[in-house]
């Protein structure tokens, strides 16, 4: 039993789950009804209007209502939103035991000690039926979830099933008058709205509870005879099926589980029992020490149960609902309904992979708890609690996806937890001895590693490492070095989630998330008030996790927040961008789309990726008070500035970020004294005198202004201030300013004007203004104040300011991080695109004899010599003792002395792969790759008549050089050249040698052909010729796989040959400057070559032009016509038509050796036409034609073969040999 929530209270007699919200009603013996949030564990409300115990309570399925019935004979209907009792139904004459809403009609059924069951209409607030028949207290009554039935249990030892079909008909069609008339009649005669259908007798004592099966025609009942009975019914009768014995006292409540095939009952014997409904055996018993159980309730949707007892209630579930899953690359593997399945994120496809074993014993919580997957071996480890902790290993064949028929015998073992630690190794925790067993895929132990401290679970922590979990901490343990690599205090970790780069780890415990790096250095801890369920790292390094009711994020600095609220718990498997993939409790994959912009924004701020911040500000509606206050808190007022429209906030943010310009603008908008004043202070702090002055002016703060002028050296402005003060009759100000100015006369004048004649006189006298002093003395008469004696006089002159004008050097203000931040753009990492474009060579099975196998007869008796130990180093004396302490492997080398070397016979070397290649092959390219150049040449000579090998030299060398790769093995030992073979496939068997992978392939030839075409189009004839020749030279050495390709190769030879011939003629033509006739002929012959249309058009165009110029009009017209037939472009066509017009009917001016009506080929050496019927010879390789006199010479087209030589033909594929 997994307890989710517990309360302490008075005896709980009634319970009801809310169908959607996480709420439960508990009615107490004290008369109070409590409404709890069992997820948060808080008391939401209490309803205290019943007088005496409340035994029955029930939520309405859709309305915000619940009903209660108590010992005060009252049925009350409440609205929990308004916290009010809406009305009370009166009628029962004794305690009310249970109340229940109908799921569809506005009905309430109630059972009472007055021996009746009543059905009420809560809309009309009347009793619509009274079901009589029980002759003792009716302990419970409830509607059937689908049919028109009511089941009731009574202390009269019976269970009754009532048919309320008539009542429903009356409700459905109340308007039917005739029917109503008859009904009224029947009503008068005792009512047949509800009739007893079956009376189930069998219990020996009073029956306390009876309830229907949610789908099947079954009833379960519990009675004071301590028995639970199972009943079955059909249309006509009902009968007892079986009795479940086990309770030691009165059974108080019993029900079928909605989702599993089990029965749950509770009793006054202080126990809850779980029974298998099919086998009718007890599965499990939960006992409490002191509390008798009274009531059970099941959640209508979720897998939750509640039980009320003497001192409160518990909300619990019987089995864990978390599906076991493991994410690997683009897929998540998980277990659902006894099947191993996987889900591909990219395609969102679910595939059933293989069935897994059912646990032998029927008991609870045997389903898989964790799953570990090894992608390369396609192996899955499933751990469960079966037999006190065990694992099963399944190796799924790659091709079995989707096949369900196939059930594989899993390899099993005992162990607390098991997890893959490498591709083909997994670790199993053996708790009893506290050691980790490392096993291979055959389930054999490879290694044992004792753990330094007692651990209760292990998790993956990178290849070869384990994350071990103890009560209060986790450690990373290196299995090979047996070293602890990192340790972190973290209480009761339940799940660990690694980021995809294995750099960060999140440790999930019941109420906390701890983030650490791969060395388990703590980064941050988040505490949650409710349970943490699951989590995943998104691609930006944000940890996305779920609690019972929220999806939340956690940034690397520990900032967290809510992304979305959840109705039901989910288990996140992956987070990418705005998409969160998760598994729900039914094992269904779901995709939740969330708005990631908030945390992406915060992350960008955190990482100082201001370019992202910038673009997010521009492109999204992020604005909100929360974001602004976040920015302010995190010290980004300057960023926040960009969000704010409100001037006051803007002003404050501007001041905070020191952005005077914006502050001034805002201050102008606001224009009140306080803001100007604060602006002045900030401007002064920055030394921006202009703004300070402006601010003082705006607030008319003359004293500060004057002082500012004084210290900045604007003496004229001080004088001006002095005048203003005079105009304002501000004597004090005027005097101050005069003092600042050091103007004694002015001071005297001011004092005089103010009527302070004695002061004025003293001032004047002191400063030696004798005239004025005398005048004042005269005015004062006898009241002349006496000047202090013995003091030296000096003129009070203010010190000169250091800088006499302008702003002070301004403080460097962060003028908006964006300017700086924007430089960081373009740092987007280039995606490395290293997907192999695997050469798709077919499965070449040449059935080569395994040469090394065949050679393996020599050199036996190698292993036998191990045994001869020698102990001949007796003279070493004392050293001997030390030697004995050495580990055993240090002793074995002693065998190796000289004595043995005589006996040892090294095996003869095997056959190199390159030799194997040549043995089987008659393909020149393969011989060249193997380095057997002489045989390669002989083959070429025989097959193609090639005699000139000079052009082939670099090709031979390349083939040979590319035939081996180089493997560095032991340090400083010679490296191993390894033959590169062709046609590798996953299923190729080892030790069977394939043919060499040649560096020249047919597809390369096609690419080169394209390049050569391009050069031709661009008119780079020497370049094009070189490229075509290159192709022609390479072809004898390539090897293709199929007959079809052989034909393509032959085709390619022809194409290239035509071009080589044509280009050679064209180059020849360009050399001939004077012989215009020959030039025309060569141009004409060029048009006879088989070319691509685009080239043909160009060739025709040039030939046409040439002939037209030389007034060979008929030939020119012929070319023009041909050109028009070859899809020319606009300008070509125009030109051709012009030529055609000009030439029509005219004759050639001179005779050319060119008769286009008579088919011909051109001699490759002499470039003369060989008309049909004339004798010719051809090149055995490229097939070029020549006049007979050329026979025996080297072919001028391919430069390789001898014209007219005997040859067997091109051999470029092993398929030609079969």
């Amino acid at each position: 039993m997994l307890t989710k929530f517990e309360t302490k209270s008075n005896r709980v007699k009634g319970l009801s789950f809310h169908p959607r919200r996480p709420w439960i009603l508990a009615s107490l013996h004290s008369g109070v009804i409590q409404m709890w949030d069992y997820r948060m564990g808080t008391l939401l409300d209490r309803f205290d209007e019943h007088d005496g115990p409340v035994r029955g309570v029930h939520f309405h399925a859709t309305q915000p209502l619940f009903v209660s019935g108590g010992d005060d004979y009252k049925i009350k209907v409440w609205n929990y939103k308004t916290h009010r009792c809406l009305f009370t139904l009166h009628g029962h004459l004794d305690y009310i035991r249970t109340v229940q809403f109908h799921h569809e009609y506005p009905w309430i059924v109630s059972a009472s000690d007055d021996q009746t069951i009543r059905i009420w209409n809560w809309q009309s607030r009347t009793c619509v039926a009274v079901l009589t028949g029980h002759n003792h207290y009716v302990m419970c009554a409830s509607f059937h979830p689908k049919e028109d039935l009511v089941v009731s249990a009574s202390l009269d030892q019976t269970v009754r099933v009532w048919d309320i079909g008539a009542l429903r008909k009356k409700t459905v069609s109340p308007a039917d008058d005739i029917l109503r008339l008859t009904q009224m009649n029947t009503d008068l005669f005792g009512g047949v709205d509800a009739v007893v259908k079956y009376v189930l007798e069998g219990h020996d004592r009073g029956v306390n509870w009876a309830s229907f099966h949610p789908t099947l025609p079954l009833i379960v009942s519990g009675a004071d005879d301590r028995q639970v009975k199972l009943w079955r019914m059909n249309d006509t009768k009902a009968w007892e099926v079986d009795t479940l014995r086990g309770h030691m006292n009165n059974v108080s409540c019993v029900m079928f589980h909605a989702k599993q095939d089990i029965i749950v009952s509770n009793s006054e014997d202080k126990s809850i029992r779980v029974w298998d409904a099919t086998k009718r055996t007890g599965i499990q018993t939960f006992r409490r020490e002191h509390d008798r159980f009274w009531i059970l309730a099941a959640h209508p949707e979720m897998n939750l149960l509640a039980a009320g007892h003497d001192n409160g209630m518990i909300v619990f579930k019987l089995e864990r609902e978390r599906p076991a899953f493991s994410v690997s690359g683009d897929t998540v593997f998980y277990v659902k309904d006894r099947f191993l399945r996987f889900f591909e994120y990219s395609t969102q496809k679910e595939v059933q992979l293989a069935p897994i074993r059912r646990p032998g014993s029927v008991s609870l919580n045997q389903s898989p708890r964790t799953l570990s997957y090894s992608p390369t071996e396609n192996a899955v480890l499933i751990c469960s609690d079966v037999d006190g902790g065990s694992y099963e290993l399944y190796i799924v064949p790659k091709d079995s996806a989707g096949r369900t028929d196939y059930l594989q015998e899993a390899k099993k073992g005992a162990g607390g937890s098991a997890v893959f630690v490498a591709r083909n190794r997994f670790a199993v925790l053996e708790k009893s001895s506290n050691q980790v067993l490392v096993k291979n895929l055959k389930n054999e132990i490879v290694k044992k590693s004792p753990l330094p401290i007692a651990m209760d679970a292990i998790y993956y922590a990178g290849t070869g490492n384990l994350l071990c979990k103890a009560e209060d901490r986790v450690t990373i343990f290196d299995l090979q070095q047996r070293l602890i690599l990192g340790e972190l205090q973290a209480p009761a970790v339940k799940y660990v989630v690694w980021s995809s780069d294995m750099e960060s780890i999140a440790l999930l415990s019941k109420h906390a998330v701890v983030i650490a790096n791969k060395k388990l250095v703590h980064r941050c801890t988040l505490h949650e008030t409710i349970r943490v369920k699951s989590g995943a790292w998104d691609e930006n390094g944000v940890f996305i996790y779920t609690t019972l009711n929220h999806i939340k994020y956690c940034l690397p600095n520990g900032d967290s927040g809510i992304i979305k609220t959840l109705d039901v718990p989910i288990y996140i498997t992956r987070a990418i961008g705005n998409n969160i993939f998760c598994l729900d409790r039914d094992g269904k994959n779901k995709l939740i789309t969330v708005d990631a912009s908030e945390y992406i924004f915060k992350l960008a701020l955190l990482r100082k990726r201001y370019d992202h911040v910038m673009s997010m500000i521009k492109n999204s509606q992020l604005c909100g008070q929360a974001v602004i206050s976040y920015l302010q808190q995190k010290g980004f007022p300057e960023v926040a500035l960009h969000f704010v429209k409100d001037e006051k906030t803007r002003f404050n943010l501007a001041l905070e970020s020191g952005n005077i310009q914006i502050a001034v603008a805002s201050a102008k908008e606001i224009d009140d004294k306080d803001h100007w004043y604060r602006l002045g202070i900030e401007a002064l702090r920055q030394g921006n005198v202009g703004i300070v002055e402006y601010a003082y002016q705006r607030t008319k703060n003359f004293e500060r202004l004057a002082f500012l002028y004084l210290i900045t050296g604007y003496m004229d402005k001080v004088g001006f201030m002095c005048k203003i003060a005079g105009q304002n009759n501000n004597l004090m100000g005027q005097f101050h300013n005069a003092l600042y100015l050091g103007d004694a006369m002015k001071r005297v004048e001011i004092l005089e004007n103010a009527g302070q004649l004695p002061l004025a006189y003293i001032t004047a006298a002191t400063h030696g203004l004798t005239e004025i002093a005398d005048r004042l003395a005269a005015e004062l008469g006898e009241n002349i104040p006496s000047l202090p004696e013995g003091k030296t006089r000096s003129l009070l002159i203010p010190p000169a300011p250091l800088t006499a004008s302008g702003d002070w050097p301004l403080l460097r203000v962060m003028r908006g991080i964006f300017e700086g931040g924007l430089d960081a753009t373009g740092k987007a990492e280039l995606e490395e695109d290293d997907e192999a474009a695997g050469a798709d060579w077919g499965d070449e099975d040449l059935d080569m004899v395994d040469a090394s196998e065949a050679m393996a007869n020599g050199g036996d008796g190698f292993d036998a010599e191990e045994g001869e130990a020698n102990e001949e180093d007796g003279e070493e004396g004392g050293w001997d003792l030390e030697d004995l302490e050495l580990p055993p492997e240090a002793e074995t080398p002693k065998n190796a002395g000289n004595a043995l070397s005589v006996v040892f016979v090294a095996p003869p070397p095997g056959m190199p792969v390159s030799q194997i290649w040549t043995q089987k092959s008659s393909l020149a390219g393969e011989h060249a790759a193997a380095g057997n150049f002489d045989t390669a040449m002989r083959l070429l000579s025989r097959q193609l008549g090639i005699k000139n090998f000079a052009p082939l030299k670099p090709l031979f060398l390349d083939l040979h050089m590319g035939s081996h790769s180089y493997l560095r093995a032991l340090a400083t030992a010679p490296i191993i050249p390894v033959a590169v073979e062709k046609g590798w496939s996953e299923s190729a068997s080892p030790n069977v040698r394939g043919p060499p992978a040649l560096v020249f392939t047919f597809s390369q030839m096609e690419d080169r052909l394209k390049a050569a075409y391009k050069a031709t189009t661009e008119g780079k004839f020497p370049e094009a010729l070189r490229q075509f020749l290159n192709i022609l030279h390479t072809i004898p050495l390539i090897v293709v796989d199929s007959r079809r390709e052989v034909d393509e190769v032959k085709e390619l030879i022809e194409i290239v040959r035509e071009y080589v011939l044509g280009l050679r003629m064209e180059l020849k033509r360009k050399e001939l400057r004077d012989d215009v006739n020959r030039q025309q002929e060569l141009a004409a012959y060029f048009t006879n070559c088989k070319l691509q249309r685009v080239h043909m058009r160009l060739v025709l165009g040039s030939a046409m032009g040439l002939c037209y110029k030389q007034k060979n009009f008929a030939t020119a017209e012929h070319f023009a016509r041909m050109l028009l037939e070859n899809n020319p472009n606009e300008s070509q066509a125009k030109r051709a038509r012009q030529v055609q017009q000009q030439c029509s009917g005219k004759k050639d001016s001179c005779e050319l050796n060119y008769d286009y009506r008579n088919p011909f080929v051109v001699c490759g050496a002499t470039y003369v036409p060989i008309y049909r019927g004339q004798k010719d010879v051809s090149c055995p390789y490229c097939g070029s034609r020549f006049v007979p006199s050329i026979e025996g010479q080297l072919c001028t087209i391919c430069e390789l073969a001898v014209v007219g030589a005997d040859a067997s033909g091109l051999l470029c594929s092993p398929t030609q040999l079969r």
Partner: protein
Amino acid sequence: MASPDLLFNLRNLFYLGAYQAAINNSDVPGLDADAAAERDAIVFRSYVALGSYQLVISEIDSSAATSLQAVKLLALYLSGDKESAIVSLKEWLSDSAVGSNPVLRLIAGIIFMHEQDYTEALKHTHSGGTLDLHALNVQIFIKMHRSDYAEKQLKIMQQIDEDHTLTQLANAWLDIAVGGSKIREAYLIFQDFAEKYPMTGMVLNGKAVCCMHMGSFDEAETLLLEALNKDAKDPETLANLIVCNLHLGKPSSRYLSQLKLSHPDHVLVKRAVSAEDNFERALQAVA
């Protein structure tokens, strides 16, 4: 709990070709005498692998342990003083007191392998005793194209410690040598190393060789360029790049001249030179 293996890390670095890292991390505290001797041998072998022959020759004096003397011989041999190295090697080997030293025998195996005298090499190494020796045996047998014998040696290694880095490496060598479906396994072994330990040129080259044998030359090129970034002068990287580029139809001549300049003794260079002679000879034979 068994005592932690203090030299584990150092050995791995050495075997995986991170010689400089091995030297830098050789200061392991708390070693007993045997472990310290092993450490010293690894450090000097690393120096040899890095080509610092003179340093090794001058640092190891005549009083040093046999294993270090052996490493000195190797340095002598590789620095070009082949004859005297072999003479003193034979002398050491015939000395019954030290002739069975595993490091000495290992070095003997390596030197005779360079001499292409595999029988002589095997004479000293065939009885094994350390994983190093067995690994060398695997390598010798592969060189002799006797994968059947190599496999037997590997089996012995697997019985000693299946998960040992050297066992895994030897397994990969053999897998590559026998080819077929085993190539994939070799690739996975190198992949495991890449995940577990810092990437080294050797691991990258190993992966690249597997890729080439599986026909994925593009992927091999990516890996090799990564290796070239780590060490622009690594001869194997250059050699494999040449081969890879040939298959991709890309120019490789610059790598070839680079290799010819920096490592004129490299197998690929030697093969290329002999191939040219071979061609001329073949021309004459055919003509």
